[in-house]
């Protein structure tokens, strides 16, 4: 296998990944108490001290915590004094990783710590997520996240692209795969259950839970020094489409397709795909636009149907894909993260290992 084609100013790789056990509730832990062990684990993998990190970027949401500037509380866990170079996105940590990757590309940092977390348990996440919708036409109706995904699922069924048994099989496959993932919240045989919002049943929907994840990025020789087999980010891109659901073809995801093209997904075969598809129906859309064939292992970690800590689940996809490269189980993987209703925003990264 030839050396991966790197199209950017600097070679940047994921060199370490850690995540918490994802649990339905973590009442005994504040956000920083939940995040800190994960930070320590990811630093320990590289031997770096907190003060040696060039840039730190996190992702989280105040609406989950129910208070403003909630991310400042977890900053204590990274050793933010004396002052560090730090930033935050009110998004899934995959977008924090993108910001950190840009920072390294500019040459202003050689290493970056990226982390994200979400505690969904204090509130009702289905209702909380309605507050991210258009405030004029949608938010006053309180359409919850499951309802919006169900509209997309029905559109796919009407288009003949899936049916309820096929959706159930996606959930079953994901939770079976999660048996090999000690961090997963749901694994093994899980009943498909009743309709939540028809046509989606409980088994088509993600578990609600709390969790955190962290990765370390490094450039060039630093990456080689910190990791035996770095997961090089040979392509990364993110795209957004129109806010209004009624303007979009819900059976398609042009933003994912464009991001994948720009990231170079289609330039060589893949062996692994970690897709952020919180609903089984969304995996149908993503497989189609990414052109994933049977030879690709899709969500060997179990994916978001096995653990979906809001704001961390997308970063975990990048981390899981990278970890497979670190372990030599993958040579070329695609990682995908989403945000917003019905795959509104999508980030796609290609990760490659050096040839053995």
């Amino acid at each position, binding site marked *: 296998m030839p050396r991966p084609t790197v199209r950017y100013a600097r070679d940047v790789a994921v060199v370490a990944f850690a995540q918490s056990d994802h649990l339905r509730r973590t009442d005994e832990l504040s956000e920083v108490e939940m995040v800190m062990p994960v930070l320590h684990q990811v630093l320990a993998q590289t031997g770096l001290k907190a003060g040696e990190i060039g840039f730190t970027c996190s992702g989280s949401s105040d609406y989950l915590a129910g208070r403003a500037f909630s991310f400042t509380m977890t900053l204590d866990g990274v050793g933010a004094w004396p002052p560090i170079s730090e930033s935050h996105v009110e998004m899934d940590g995959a977008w924090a990783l993108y910001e950190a990757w840009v920072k390294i590309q500019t040459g202003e940092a050689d290493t970056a710590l990226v982390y994200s977390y979400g505690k969904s348990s204090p*509130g009702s996440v289905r209702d909380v997520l309605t507050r991210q919708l258009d405030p004029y036409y949608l938010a006053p109706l309180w359409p919850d996240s499951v309802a919006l995904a169900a509209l997309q699922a029905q559109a796919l069924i009407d288009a003949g692209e899936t049916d309820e048994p096929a959706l159930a099989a996606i959930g079953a496959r994901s939770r079976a795969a999660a048996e090999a993932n000690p961090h997963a919240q749901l694994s093994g045989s899980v009943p498909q259950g009743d309709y939540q919002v028809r046509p989606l049943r409980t088994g088509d929907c993600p578990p609600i839970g709390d969790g955190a994840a962290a990765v370390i990025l490094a450039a060039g020789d630093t990456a080689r020094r910190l990791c035996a087999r770095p997961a090089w980010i040979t392509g990364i891109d993110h795209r957004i489409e129109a806010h209004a659901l009624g*303007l979009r073809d819900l059976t398609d995801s042009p933003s994912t397709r464009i991001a994948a093209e720009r990231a170079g997904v289609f330039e060589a075969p893949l062996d692994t795909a970690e897709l952020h598809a919180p609903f089984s129906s969304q995996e149908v859309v993503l497989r189609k636009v990414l052109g994933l064939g049977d030879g690709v292992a899709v969500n060997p970690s179990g994916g978001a149907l096995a653990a979906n800590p809001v704001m961390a689940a997308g970063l975990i996809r990048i981390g899981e894909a990278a970890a497979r490269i670190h372990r030599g189980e993958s040579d070329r993987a695609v990682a995908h993260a989403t945000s917003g209703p019905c795959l509104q925003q999508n980030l796609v990264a290609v990760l490659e290992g050096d040839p053995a």
Partner: protein
Amino acid sequence: MTAPASPPEVLRAPLVVEFPFTRSLGPVQSAFLTGLREGVVLGVKTSDGTVMVPPVEYDPRTAEEIRELVEVAATGTVTTWAWNGRPRPNQPLDTPFAWVLVKLDGADTALLHALDAPGPESVRTGMRVRVRWAAERTGAITDIACFEPHDGPAAGQAAPHDGNFAEPVTGIVAEARLDYSYSPGRAQTAYISGLSEQKTIGERCPSCHKVYVPPRGACPTCGVATTDQVEVGPAGTVTTYCIVNIKARNLDIEVPYVYAHIALDGAGLALHGRIGGIPYDEVRMGLRVEPVWTEGGRYPDHYRPTGEPDADYDAYKELI
């Protein structure tokens, strides 16, 4: 006093976040929402002739400004749906209903709303529906109470509309309330539990040995968990202060009063509190103070002088 951190007895309390989300409307949204109040559904027409309902002000494909208003019918066709067997609070209907995207007759895009139907068997993509208007309308998306099944053919084309109405709606208030059950975590639970016994409990960093009050469970310098609980105070030293001359609403304290940073004995950083029991212009750095608890108070009401000699500057300069 030093004790190992005890297993948490988790505190939990309801936390309600309420906000009136106040938004002004541009010309297009104003016309649309005012139209709903008047029982008229408006859309916008893009330069390629696409009619968007609900309307947007900029073409999502070209970013071109769109201002050409048109009127569409109050009847339409379901483009996709989802049966909601268990309506959640605040949703348009409190009986089971279908969420629907509806392409109104004359429109090329779909509007999200609720469909009142007897059951999922009676709903399908392609079915014909019409608007059921709310009895009282204010200029909001909820002026459409919901959709209802409708037997009838598609009703014609979009017609030009000037968008002019008497007393147009220029803003909306989207009321929101989210209910949480807040748990402060291990370290803050210990702090709050200590206060209930009129004790101030900090936590010591195992690495730099600084004692944090109130503790948040982590040392921000070392990035490690603070583990050992330490009772600090009750007395402390004023490290800096300010004189407040503005009366806060709902606060029953005469101005001027003094607000100070107070380093409790044994603490590695200062917390803040009000100083009482001394004229405001006699408060000074180094003043020794102690907490004053009111009957049933859950934290010190204020701090008052202990009568001890002032602390030496060198004793607290690191904590300013």
